[in-house]
């Protein structure tokens, strides 16, 4: 299926439309209220952006410092150049620990490296403990939003899913559903040998890995199993605790409209002598997977991304089609850029056009990533490397030629008037062939005027 075909499927899915509309509208309201009630919001965004840029400028330094600090506290750090390396490394750690089951927090990095598939393949059962991810895992699906993986499901659909799984009727009541998941998961937390988390940030100065959740499952995953593995894209390192404070505040406001998320979990290495809880082993997996290359690449700014999901919520395209239609780990406007970063620009030939360039994403982005500009650059790459369709290139080049020749351009209107004659009714066109057919399927098209402005100008000039 082409991307366009997938969008048509999504548009025809009534449940998806209902769920998306409710959730994205709510997210937008929450974010708006959070910034409206916090006068320093714009300045905070500037500071967050400056922190990200300063970090990227000395990324090697901060990563080295992070590694040093984690190791000093008894943790182990693994650097993975590729998704394969990360996956294999994590499976190996689990194997050595003799693990049969791994509990997980929500983590886009582990989605990116398709960790669950690898774990299952190795005989280690991955158990998602974030409610949204838990739902997704039961449904054998993939997350469709960066922070709300099950955003595409209505509560009715979740109740159906739970009913089928438990073989009894479950009410479509979020509280009931949450309680069921809580009971199911409590056992798993106690049984699991390994806890696998992502990391929203890691502080270079202190070797602290930071998890932001609203369910508290992050604490269980990092404290109950014997082994804790945190997986993190290299760009998530922050220099200091004071930088962390800024980023935590802007992340919570942008993602869910909160001042801070309900749980902010700070983890520093394995359990130390005298401590009552915490894992025996702590591993930090630093994931490159195409990121470092972009430090000097056209997508550098996408490395600022905090994964808040705000750009998805405001994107008119995402709001209509949801995340699955993108068929990439990261959906939405930033997802297109991240997909190009991870899989190369050719992977987003179609997706680069999945934007009206309305700019709502850049406006909502806490660190002001200029997403539309990079989408245009990706489109440009398609033209320059001739991966854009041949016919399209001919049409646009012909159009460009016309714009450069005013004498020829003046002939366009008379010609169009002749060509449009069979189609015009009451000044408008209801059906056209070729590439304009798709316009007229749902919209009338104004006919080229009987007299263009240019043609009227001479008499208009005399009018005064």
């Amino acid at each position, binding site marked *: 299926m082409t991307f366009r075909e997938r969008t048509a499927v999504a548009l025809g899915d009534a449940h998806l439309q209902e769920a998306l509309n409710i959730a994205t509208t709510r997210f937008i309201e929450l974010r708006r209220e959070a910034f409206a009630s916090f006068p320093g919001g714009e300045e905070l965004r500037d500071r967050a952006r400056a922190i990200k840029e300063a970090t990227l400028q000395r990324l090697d330094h901060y990563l080295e410092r992070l590694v040093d600090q984690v190791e000093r506290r008894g943790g182990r750090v693994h650097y993975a150049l590729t998704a394969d390396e990360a996956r294999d490394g994590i499976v190996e750690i689990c194997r050595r620990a003799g693990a049969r089951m791994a509990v997980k927090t929500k983590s886009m990095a582990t989605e990116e490296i398709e960790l669950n598939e690898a774990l299952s393949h190795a005989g280690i059962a991955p158990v998602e403990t974030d409610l949204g991810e838990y739902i997704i895992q039961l449904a054998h699906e993939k997350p469709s939003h960066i922070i709300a993986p099950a955003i595409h499901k209505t509560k009715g659909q979740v109740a159906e899913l739970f009913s089928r799984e438990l073989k009894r009727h479950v009410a479509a009541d979020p509280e009931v559903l949450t309680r069921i998941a809580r009971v199911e998961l409590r056992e798993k937390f106690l049984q699991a040998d390994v806890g696998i988390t992502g990391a929203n940030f890691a502080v270079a100065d202190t070797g602290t890995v930071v998890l932001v959740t609203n369910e508290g499952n992050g604490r269980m995953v990092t404290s109950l199993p014997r082994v804790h593995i945190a997986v993190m894209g290299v760009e998530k390192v922050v220099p200091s605790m004071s930088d962390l404070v800024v980023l935590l505040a802007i992340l919570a406001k942008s993602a869910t409209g909160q001042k801070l998320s309900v749980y902010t979990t700070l983890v520093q290495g394995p359990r130390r002598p005298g401590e009552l809880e915490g894992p025996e082993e702590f591993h930090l997996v630093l994931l490159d997977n195409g990121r470092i290359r972009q430090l000097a690449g056209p997508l550098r700014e996408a490395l600022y991304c905090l994964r808040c999901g705000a750009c998805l919520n405001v994107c008119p395209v995402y709001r209509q089609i949801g995340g699955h239609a993108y068929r990439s780990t990261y959906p939405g406007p930033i997802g297109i850029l991240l997909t190009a970063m991870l899989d190369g620009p050719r992977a987003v030939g179609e997706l680069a056009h999945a934007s009206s360039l309305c700019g709502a994403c850049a406006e909502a982005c806490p660190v002001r990533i200029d997403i539309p500009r990079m989408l245009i650059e990706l489109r440009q790459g398609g033209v320059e490397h001739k991966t854009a369709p041949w016919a399209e290139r001919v049409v646009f080049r012909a159009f460009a030629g*016309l714009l450069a020749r005013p004498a020829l351009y003046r002939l366009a209107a008379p010609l169009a008037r002749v060509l449009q004659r069979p189609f015009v009714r009451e000044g408008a066109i209801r059906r056209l062939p070729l590439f304009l057919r798709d316009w007229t399927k749902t919209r009338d098209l104004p006919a080229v005027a009987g007299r263009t402005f240019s043609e009227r100008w001479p008499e208009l000039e005399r009018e005064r």
Partner: protein
Amino acid sequence: MSQARPAPVRASLMVTCLGDMLFPEVGVSIVRLLRGLGVSVDFPKGQTCCGLPLLNSGYRAEAAAVARRTTLVFQDAAHVVVPSGSCAWMVKHEYPALIADPALRATAEGLAQRTYELSQFLVGVLGETRFRSAVSGRVTYHDSCHLLRGLGEATSPRTILRNLRGAELVDLPGHDECCGFGGSFAVRLPEVSSAILDKKLANVEASGAGCVVACDAGCLMQMAGGLRRRGSRARALHLAEVLQWEGASTAPMKLEWAAAAPSKPPHSREGDDRGAGEAGARTR
């Protein structure tokens, strides 16, 4: 209103490709409106399109060629008035970056400074905010994306519409949300574009306004096309089409295409002799 000014303000109209071919009435209205306000208006020869469709689809070299020649076409203009926020944004925001030649780039930077979307020119340069309405009843305002987020302009059009004599400005739910046009996006992903449009039009209808005003020909093409297809009674009009200078002596404009919705044909096909209050808008 327009007191005698020391020297007449000069403005050059950049009518844009859509304005020229599809919405000539908008350009005509602007010329008459500006002249009524004492502005001397010219229409530089050789103008075509600003090149934004090329830039947005990834044809940067071609867009740069258009930027170079359009800069030369308008280099002598005292002010450039553009009826579309997106085209104004292209000139103001993108032209300098597209032009490599230092001398021409400097010219483009100067041009960018002197280029205004219509409402910005009316309010910011001329200081004119009070107009007579060419439509009656309620009107609402759609923020075009490039005008709102590209040029940061949300107040000028609203100031004008709020002061409009003979019409009432009402809020549009989701006023800052895209209409789904996006240039080639509307044809590349027509289903998504139409779904976004449906939402916009539902909001227009929910606003209770008989007319949605925008400052961008692209949005108007999209919204008017959708309204017409669904047989809606609401109209999509350019700001210039709803404005009349208080002292206007010329006949009210004829809103050819916008007025000719199948669900409610205008009272008169000729239209030129209609009263201002009836032109194009639903009479409530």
